[in-house]
């Protein structure tokens, strides 16, 4: 930290909060609230005279409230920058600190919070994690039994800079404990609280046990665990070392801790899984290894930064495997436990990686983005025409790239748009289009594919990232499937406009496949969700119309599921084969007016009418050419 603070190009702003983030990659405008410290940073030399003079004592958050601190304080002795601050909530305004500071005149009670706006090129979020409060788990008696402590309290108790100078003592009688139990997975891997594994606690409790055992070999330590997870380099060896040192490991999650009301000793009830027997052992002290949880203000941060959260509340990475530290918004990166529980080596690695990713942006004059971005025709947007915005585009966008303010037409922030086309398909006014995937272009393709004997064809809409890959794999793997399939590619299932599906059936298509990525696998985070909702609405509409089951089909097919792609198409072919041709013809003709009714506004979309005329001409030309041959 000290090194970082000394770096001339690193500007450390302690006690400062991010209020607002606007703009886009390379051009963020960030509003910072520099909170009042009531101490002038340019004058304080960190001598600590104010702390000595201050008569107010409050619980010290850094020491897990095991020790007091003054109202004039630094959070910890290694604070960077070493500038004191006055805790105004607890200050009694006796001004003793002002006297103590003397000629330096660093203390300034008139300071106020300051809002500063900064131009920022890239943002790295490293807001860390918080701790689960085990007092809600009554069975372990934390906060009721004095000798049940948390791992963080243990951390302070055996730290030589901690409140006891590193002497581990029992809170009830200040005696040194001889027997200790550590309980892992307190509040983690527990569906009642946090279902996930907290990642580092296994190693952390082994570390604490080894430290204590090194300081005092007579102390008897038992670690209660469900599974010991040591997946990184050297971790298993460390676990071995702990067992060689005589630390006991007992598999079985304790269900209950009871206390002897006189001695305040604790009894841990657990099943010894190896024996299949319940054990009840007496300990002087119990340490609970509590779960890591998201920061209490993580929701707030996620809305300030406009980044999504994963289930559980952690920030969500762009892609769990391929882009693990990028946020969905270009130019915002994550490092460390704000993404999920993580140990020190992984956090450091992510920090370095995030810095490298960020510097790529800072060193570029230009930034490449997807060419398939969305564009608004402002004169068609309902905000402009009806004076009231529907906001469906904002809801559909996974990236917060749509700007909608007042009665002004929606605007796409091009640098934020990733080109899924969700907003384009959602817009009820057809006021948005997507470059390279305009309605007219897609329509022209459809009409060409369904030009001849459309009732025999199966039009397959595939998303670029998953089901298109699946179809490709089916081909390269030589999986046989029906030759009546006609494939269409769009970037995401979110782009598969209801108009396309209606138009396909109006043109007389025998079957239509609506396919995309599996939920959670979507390249555009939540694009599949938008697509899936629309598809199920369509399915209901077609069911009501009395369309034969299986002519319209929704399937989520990954790029690895070539076999599934082939199977689905063959099944659709079976459906068509099982309808007598005259019945199919009758059904198509019967439903055409229904489809046309729903396509009233479609020809009005810029370019669509021309595309219809043009593709009709083209199709005619090609067919007559073929006939001439």
């Amino acid at each position, binding site marked *: 930290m000290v090194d970082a603070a000394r770096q001339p190009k690193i500007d450390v702003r302690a006690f400062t909060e991010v209020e607002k983030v606007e703009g886009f990659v390379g051009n963020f405008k960030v509003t910072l609230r520099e909170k009042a410290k009531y101490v002038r940073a340019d004058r304080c030399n960190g001598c600590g005279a104010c702390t000595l003079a201050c008569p107010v004592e409050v619980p010290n958050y850094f020491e897990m409230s095991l020790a007091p601190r003054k109202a004039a304080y630094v959070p910890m002795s290694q604070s960077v920058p070493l500038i004191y601050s006055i805790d105004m909530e607890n200050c009694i305004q006796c001004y003793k600190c002002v006297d103590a500071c003397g000629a330096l005149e660093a203390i300034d009670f008139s300071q106020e919070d300051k809002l500063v706006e900064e131009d920022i090129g890239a943002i790295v979020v490293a807001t860390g994690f918080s701790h689960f409060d085990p007092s809600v788990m009554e069975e372990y008696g934390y906060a009721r039994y004095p000798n049940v402590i948390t791992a963080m309290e243990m951390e302070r108790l055996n730290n030589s800079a901690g409140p006891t100078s590193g002497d581990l003592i029992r809170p009830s009688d200040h005696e040194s404990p001889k027997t200790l139990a550590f309980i892992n997975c307190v509040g983690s*891997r527990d*569906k009642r609280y946090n279902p996930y594994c907290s990642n580092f606690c296994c190693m952390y409790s082994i570390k604490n046990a080894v430290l204590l055992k090194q300081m005092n070999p007579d102390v008897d330590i038992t670690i209660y665990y469900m599974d010991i997870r040591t997946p990184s380099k050297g971790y298993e060896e460390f676990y071995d070392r702990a067992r060689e040192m005589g630390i006991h490991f007992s598999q079985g999650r*304790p*269900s209950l801790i*009871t*206390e002897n009301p006189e001695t305040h000793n604790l009894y841990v009830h657990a*099943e010894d899984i190896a024996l299949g027997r*319940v054990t009840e052992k007496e300990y002087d002290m119990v340490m609970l290894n509590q779960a890591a949880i998201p920061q209490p203000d993580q929701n707030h941060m996620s809305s300030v930064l406009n980044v999504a959260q994963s289930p559980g509340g952690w920030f969500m990475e762009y892609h769990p495997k391929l882009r693990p530290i990028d946020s969905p918004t270009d130019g915002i990166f994550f490092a460390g436990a704000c993404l999920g529980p993580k140990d020190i080596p992984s956090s450091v690695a992510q920090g370095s990686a995030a810095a490298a990713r960020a510097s790529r942006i800072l060193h570029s004059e230009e930034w490449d983005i997807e060419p398939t971005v969305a564009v608004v025709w402002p004169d068609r947007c309902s905000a402009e025409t009806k004076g009231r915005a529907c906001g469906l585009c904002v809801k559909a966008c996974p990236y917060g790239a749509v700007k909608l303010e007042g009665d002004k037409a929606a605007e796409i922030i091009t640098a934020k748009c990733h080109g899924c086309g969700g907003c384009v398909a959602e817009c009820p006014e057809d006021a948005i289009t997507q470059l390279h995937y305009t309605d007219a272009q897609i329509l022209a393709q459809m009409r060409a594919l369904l030009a001849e004997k459309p009732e025999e064809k199966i039009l397959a809409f595939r998303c670029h990232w998953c089901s298109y890959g699946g179809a490709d794999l089916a081909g390269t793997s030589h999986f046989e499937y029906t030759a009546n399939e006609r494939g269409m590619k769009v970037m995401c299932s979110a782009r598969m406009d209801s108009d396309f599906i209606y138009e396909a059936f109006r043109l007389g298509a025998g079957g239509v496949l609506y396919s995309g990525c599996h939920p959670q696998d979507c390249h555009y985070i939540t694009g599949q969700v938008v697509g899936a909702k629309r598809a199920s609405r369509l399915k209901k509409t077609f069911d009501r119309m009395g369309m034969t089951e299986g002519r319209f089909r929704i399937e989520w097919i990954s790029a690895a599921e070539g076999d599934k792609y082939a199977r689905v198409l063959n099944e659709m072919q079976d459906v068509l084969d099982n309808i007598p041709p005259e019945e199919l013809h009758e059904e198509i003709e019967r439903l055409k007016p229904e489809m046309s009714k729903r396509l009233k506004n479609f020809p009005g979309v810029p370019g669509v009418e021309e595309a219809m005329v043009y593709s009709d001409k083209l199709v005619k030309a090609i067919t007559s050419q073929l006939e001439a041959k």
Partner: protein
Amino acid sequence: MSHTAGVQTFADEVKAVPGGEHLELCYSCGTCVSKCMIQQKVEPDYNPRRLLRMVMEGMEEAAFTSPTTWLCSECDLCFSACPQEIHISQVIKAVKELAVRAGYTSPLTAVTVNEDLCSGCGICAMVCPYEAPSLYEKEVDGVLDRFSKVDPNKCMGCGTCVAACPLGAIARVGVSNAEITAQFPETPKDAPTMIVFTCDWSLREAEDVALLESYPEDEVNVIHIPCTGRIDPQHALMALDSGVKGVLVCGCKPGECHYKRGTDVASCKIGLLDTMLGQMNLPQKQIRFVQIGTQERGRIREEIDGMLNTLTQSMEAMA
């Protein structure tokens, strides 16, 4: 072990019974086993974790004959403790249901109904936490009459119905009225003597049970009953009548009762009895009901010493 797709495995069968659904979530942490008191107090081979494993591994026979299948009384201490939120008692119940279908029977001795006394009033069916008693009709001497019958595979033997039956038509082996009253001290001395009715489950710790037994028998006379639901207010009155000065009934904390709601039934009865004593201008606080939680180690000592104190004081006051 069979994993063949399409074949109905034993695990599938259990999951199909309502309650058995979440079986596969179990990761064998053992919380249920150490929370449950049956292994510690009754049957060393009792182990819900292993039963779930047997089901998943298709060990039908072993599951049907396992004591776990038959001894679970659905107290649900494990359900609230299970980190995977598996309703273990309902999984066990599902196994038990399949076992009964397959012709296995409970090893527990169920209560018996004396049809000469039974009036078919149905109170037993109302109080039973397990829906074991039901009424059926039978012709006796040409007259259609109703009687209670108890399903031996459902009865867990708590004795709540025994205490509730107004005609004394139901009996449970070991805790009949005669067997309980026979344990009253014969010649109570003129000192603060008391009887403690304690259920088999409320004192979780062996050391608390030992403590209870360590009082001199003529001072604190301990009578063990399966559940405080078995307590008939008459027992308390007869005890006072026999000359003891106080009666302490010791049951589980509400929500932790081994037989689901026996402790609630007893709480009503004893509370009402104490009020009635007051209305009849008889000294109150001679009969007390305490509900001890699983984490309240050592509380029994406070309760007994407290009651002995009260009794001494009231005796002194009377003298």
